[in-house]
């Protein structure tokens, strides 16, 4: 059982380049999330989706775009990368009917922007 899979696991970009992070889950979860984790800041929500074809902004959405064309996939895009976007990105998912919001996380994607 793969759970939540993120690709790529590591990436180095130059300022201004674009890239897409892919998240795939095989648990048939309705909700999917993208977080970034920085030292001392904890996990901050970038964007999330409550179902196929839907997306919504989180706490720190600027500079990122997302798409949820298929229920099992959630893509995070950086159109013009900036050094401030150097971070570890985590995708997470959960059932809509979960009683308290337990999230299942991927292993993370480490992005460095030079």
């Amino acid at each position, binding site marked *: 059982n793969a759970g*939540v899979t993120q690709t790529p696991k590591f990436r180095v970009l130059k300022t201004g380049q674009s890239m897409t992070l892919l998240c795939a889950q095989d648990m048939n979860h309705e909700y999917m999330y993208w977080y970034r984790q920085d*030292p*001392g*800041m*904890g*996990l*901050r*929500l970038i964007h*999330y989706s*409550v179902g196929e074809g839907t997306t919504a902004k989180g706490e720190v959405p600027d500079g990122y775009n997302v798409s949820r064309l298929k229920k099992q996939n959630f893509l995070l895009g950086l159109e013009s990368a900036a050094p401030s976007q150097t971070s570890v990105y*985590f995708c*997470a998912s959960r059932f809509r009917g*979960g*009683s*308290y*919001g*337990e*999230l299942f*996380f*991927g*292993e*993370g994607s480490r992005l460095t922007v030079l």
Partner: protein
Amino acid sequence: QKEVEQDPGPLSVPEGAIVSLNCTYSNSAFQYFMWYRQYSRKGPELLMYTYSSGNKEDGRFTAQVDKSSKYISLFIRDSQPSDSATYLCAMSRRDNDYKLSFGAGTTVTVRA
């Protein structure tokens, strides 16, 4: 002010010691309280959750919630080197669809 405050540590203890972790929060509407454990270079995974005030025990782990003080704690008894990880508190409420608010995480090292 952050909605959830957690001392990032780091915390270093000898094997067998009791580890005490805590978080404070500002929004009294939170109803569900969780602790996630994150090993180095891995994603967080749920360790324990509690609903409203009270204690919950699971093996060597005890979670406490004091809603009147807006304070939650996690205790690890007889700590082991395998407990070395970052521990993140998280909380949610029904009226915003259980969107989690996380603390910054406390990094714990248990020395053999």
